[in-house]
């Protein structure tokens, strides 16, 4: 088991190098001069530009730039961005915000998705099942930005139940509305996945055998249906954690959440190579770790999967 975890962690190294190289190259290949773009319509003197270029190593060829980035990275010096702020500080500011948002969304989609899916699956074809199925389809069909603005207007502005935007003062409570928006689509998928899995397992031979043993229905469902049904759902949830961390750009923009998505978007617009790569690197780590966690959970849920030797 420990060997498996170690091996998986070692795999992070090539994945990390590969992704950073790719992202760095893409930022490098963006058309336009980032320094000139920084100043907009009033270009500074050539001397200033030359100095700035040198400061950010923009004169160097691609490999040298990437090499310097790596060197800085391994000496735990992420450098400063174009506004002069240390990138490490930026990461320390934005990641906790997005992590809070992602965890809240994950809990919403996990807890409610599994619970609703279980009930719908057990009452297949009934009123609850049909209603939930139609509603989940509606949620999946509506794009996040529409849903986001609609809920912002309805709950935030008209009903006044929550603050329409988050702003700089981030709390669990203020993130609730964006988390709902963020988690809603995945919630619909988790629900449908759980429902399908429960229906399949309800027909499994071992469930019938469990009933034949004299177990009450509640016991049959909790011990024999639920755990087996969670296996595909956990895989989906783990994969969606990565997506929640990185893919919240739209939601963060709508609700003005000062998180990763917003920062990443700004950095891409400004062609700030080091900032983009730093953020993406952390996201890569999150993805890899989330997948490792899924694999471990998987083995815990399904004893047929064992990773030792």
């Amino acid at each position, binding site marked *: 088991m420990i060997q498996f975890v170690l091996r998986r962690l070692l795999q992070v190294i090539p994945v990390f190098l590969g992704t950073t190289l790719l992202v760095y190259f893409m930022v490098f290949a963006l058309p336009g001069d980032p320094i000139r773009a920084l100043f907009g319509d009033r270009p500074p003197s050539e001397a200033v530009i030359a100095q700035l270029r040198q400061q950010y190593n923009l004169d160097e060829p691609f490999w040298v730039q990437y090499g310097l980035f790596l060197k800085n990275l391994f000496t735990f010096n992420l450098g400063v961005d174009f506004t002069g702020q240390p990138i490490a500080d930026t990461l320390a500011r934005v990641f906790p915000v997005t992590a809070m948002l992602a965890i809240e969304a994950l809990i919403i989609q996990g807890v409610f998705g599994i619970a609703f899916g279980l009930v719908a699956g057990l009452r297949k074809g009934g009123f609850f099942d049909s209603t939930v199925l139609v509603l989940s389809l509606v949620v999946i069909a509506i794009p996040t930005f529409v849903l986001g603005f609609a809920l912002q207007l309805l709950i935030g502005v008209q009903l006044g139940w929550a603050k329409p935007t988050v702003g700089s003062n981030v709390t669990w409570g203020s993130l609730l509305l964006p988390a709902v928006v963020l988690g809603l689509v995945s919630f619909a998928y988790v629900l449908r996945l759980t429902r399908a899995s429960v229906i399949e397992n309800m027909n499994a*031979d071992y469930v*019938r055998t469990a*009933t034949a043993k*004299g*177990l009450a229905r509640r016991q049959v469902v909790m011990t024999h249906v639920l755990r*087996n049904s969670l296996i595909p759902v956990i895989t989906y949830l783990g994969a969606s954690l990565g997506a929640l961390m990185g893919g919240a750009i739209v939601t963060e923009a709508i609700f003005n959440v000062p998180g990763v998505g917003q920062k990443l978007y700004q950095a891409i617009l400004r062609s700030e190579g080091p900032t983009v790569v730093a953020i993406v690197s952390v996201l890569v780590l999150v993805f890899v770790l989330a997948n490792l966690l899924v694999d471990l959970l998987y083995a815990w849920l399904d004893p047929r999967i064992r990773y030792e030797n």
Partner: protein
Amino acid sequence: MTTSDVTIEEAGIQAGRPLLEIRDLAISFKTGSGEVQAVRNAHLTIMPGETVAIVGESGSGKSTTALAAIGLLPGNGRVAGGQILLDGEDIAHASEKRMIELRGNIIGMVPQDPMSNLNPVWKIGDQVKETLKANGRPSGPDDVAKVLAQAGLPDAGRRAKQYPHEFSGGMRQRALIAIGLSCQPRLLIADEPTSALDVTVQRQILDHLEKMTDELGTSVLLITHDLGLAAERADKVVVMYRGNVVEAGPSLELLQNPQHPYTQRLVASAPSLASRRIQVAKELGVSTEEVLAPRGSAAVKPALTEDVLQIQNLRKVFKMRAGFGKSTDFTAVDDVSFNVKRGTTTAIVGESGSGKSTVAQMVLNLLEPTSGKIIFDGVDTSALNTKEIFAFRRRVQPIFQDPYGSLDPMYNIYRTIEEPLRVHKIGDKASREKKVRELLDQVSLPQSTMQRYPNELSGGQRQRVAIARALALDPEVIICDEAVSALDVLVQAQVLNLLAELQSRLGLTYLFITHDLAVVRQIADHVCVMEKGKLVETGSTDDVFEAPQRDYTKALLNAIPGARLMLPPEVA
């Protein structure tokens, strides 16, 4: 829950009252096109301590009847009429609460497939424990181990901590028997308890089950498709056909003197009972209408002396991963040599894991031998180039076990049978269609079948399609890998007769891979017995069956259900 809730009056036993009595039972299923009657007017009586078997083919309603008795009909099924009297109490419409009390405590169940009836994510011990707990019995680790040990599971304490996938099929079935009998029920419903197991294991399990139920005085309702097995194990046999009980009576009496035409056919076709028929007919040169379809007169048979297949010192070693890039060798086939004469049937028999299917795959050139030679018609098949292999495939064709999995569901039957002709670029469109029609005739399927899809056909019909496809290229050798194991007894007999008839008409050579010795008896001229990758005995079918040399072969033969039953010659 305490056991006192479920005590059933002792009076019933003294008064000779049946433990279970099914009267006029009707069961119907709700389907898209209305209600379908699955069981009609079923009658059944089981006295305390008695074993009663329900025999019938798939779809006959035997399992449905048994499931109704324990209140486990699928969601769309319901008892439409009649009574299920458990010691006088009608449980046909009992509340779910009452059924939960009865299940486990009074009525136990041993299900059919040991692979799918244990929850893969819980330890065996946990699955026994929850049974004991739910029925208010002591459920400590020692109690669990005791229950498992009684079912014949060695080293039960340690075994209880293992997961189902760490158990063999036989051991899983023992665990399921342990669960079924853990609360000493008065009635045990055993639904095909051993049909998924090898014959020798089957025998051990049934012996053990019999011993346990005798000791506990448990009545058993045994569901099986195997008449031989039913007759051997049960006091009474009930024959079901299309939802009706067509005949019932003491086992031997029913076998020796079947009244209903269906029972008569069943007795005649049961491989375990009537196994000599095709052989005898062949030896005597006579064929009877119902057993062997008429052979083509004076079929041109090539001389039987030519060895069309020569297998020489065949070996196959698989590398098994043992972690850290290390691997251990697993010898699946070990130094196997035998010859197959043209126009004859050679059977390879053995239990699962004996390497028989690996041999078949190597003969089909689907798997490369580690060493040894396969000589087909004088040519070493390992030396063939791509083009020659293509030509070789034309002459050697397979028929596989699973008629559901081996036909492409998206191809209609015409396309399925025509495909090999098209691949081998034989004839034009019109001549290919003519050939497909001929082939369908040969396997006794109506030509209208051409436009249908596999899911519209029964298992037997599908296997006929698979045979037609194999015959499309006029092959010389057909490798049948468990080609009839998935079929019901009567259908199996029909397909075996078809194969025998095609052999005599077309001079085909069969290599028949099977675990079922009764089938071997019916179809094979020569037998190769494999055990753990080695060929332990070969010889003519008669020699091997009459005077087996090796203990392993004897054990296999003894394990055929019904083998020990003595039947009058006109039946056997």
